């Protein structure tokens, strides 16, 4: 139920709508619940047609650093 699916923004339709690619399937998604603006190429989480979160690429890099730490001090 609380399933949110990672998707790629591939087209901006208007202020409240974008087209996302979810594992190869394109569909419209509503951006009303998002503060940040979106650009083509952003990764997002989609829940029942609404974008609920945008991937923070800086943070994703940080994640990888955290792994390196965890994985290195075995």
């Amino acid at each position: 139920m609380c399933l949110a699916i990672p998707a790629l923004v591939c087209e901006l339709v208007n202020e409240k709508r974008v087209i996302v690619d979810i594992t190869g399937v394109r569909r419209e998604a509503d951006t009303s619940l998002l503060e940040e603006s979106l650009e083509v190429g952003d990764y997002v989480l989609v829940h029942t047609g609404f974008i609920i979160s945008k991937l923070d690429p800086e943070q994703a890099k940080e994640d990888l650093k955290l792994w390196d730490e965890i994985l290195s001090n075995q």
Partner: protein
Amino acid sequence: MSGPTQKYRDKDVVNILTKKIRTLAERSSETVRIMHVCGTHEHDLVKAGLRSLLPKNIDLIAGPGCPVCVCSAQDIDEVLWIADNHNVTITTFGDMMRVPSSTESLYQAQGRGVNIQIVYGVSDAIKLAEKNPETEFVFFSVGFETTSCVTAAEVVRTKLPNFSIYSSHKVVPPAMELLLQRDDLEFDGFLAPGHVSTIIGAKPYEFIPEKYNFPVSIAGFEPVDILLGIHAVLKQIIEGTARVDNVYKRYVKQEGNSAALRIVDDAFVLSDARWRGLGIWPGTGHEINDKYAHIDAKKKFDIPNLPTEDLRDGCICDEILIGKSKPQKCKLFNKSCRPDYPIGACMVSHEGTCNVAATYEEIIWEE
């Protein structure tokens, strides 16, 4: 989509992480119990076989994280009462169709002629009502914060005379507090739900270490995400510290999704909620704000007090939902109650603890 997801499924990373978890767990001579409160966690971790990778003294407990499972029979009774007495069409998620009410499921009700249509979400329910202005529609909405913000977005902008919403929405952090306060439950740390947290952020869990000195980690759903979450909370437990570790930072901010939270605050007010087999849990529900009464099915229709029955004979969903028992302890499990013929609510959704255990034949109960 490969993109950023693939590396969170990396076999080598999974192996190293499970090794690290094993090394940590060896420092405890006792069983360490970690409770998650998310049906998607239960489904995804079992599907990935993660329990079998964990050391024997780690018990990963499924808490009340499946919104369909925790929905009380009374809520379904009331929705059916509206359908029977006001000639409305019910729209709802497919997952709700086979959840038992006191007497029948929506699916069975459909069989006796009640108009019920499955929709993908609230927006599709609204489109259906727009297309059929002569029909009265009630959207039966369940879900935690991930779903309630979507419902909220429509509550604040929809004005259709033939459409209302029956809210059975619930909130997670206050429910976690009630679990902590129970003296019949024993567990050592929480794995907090990733997608709920994309909305509410990490902050609403902070009272848990502060007030209860109890460890929490927030985790996503890929195998590496879940293992990182287990590792983080286990480390706290072993080291005797308590804080909120967020290992899903790429999607979960400290303050959450502020735009979504503003809409939720506007659309809903906190209320007491009925949880299946568990009675009323104060402050764990989301009712539609009075200022949007026009879209609230509970206000639009004068629903009487209905006698209600949450559990069928033999069903122990009340114990399953709070992680007090595992599915295999139920006498009906995989016998008369199966995914294709569910008797209790936990067997219906593919995120229900009993359904997951039956589908993946997981041995998670050893006396």
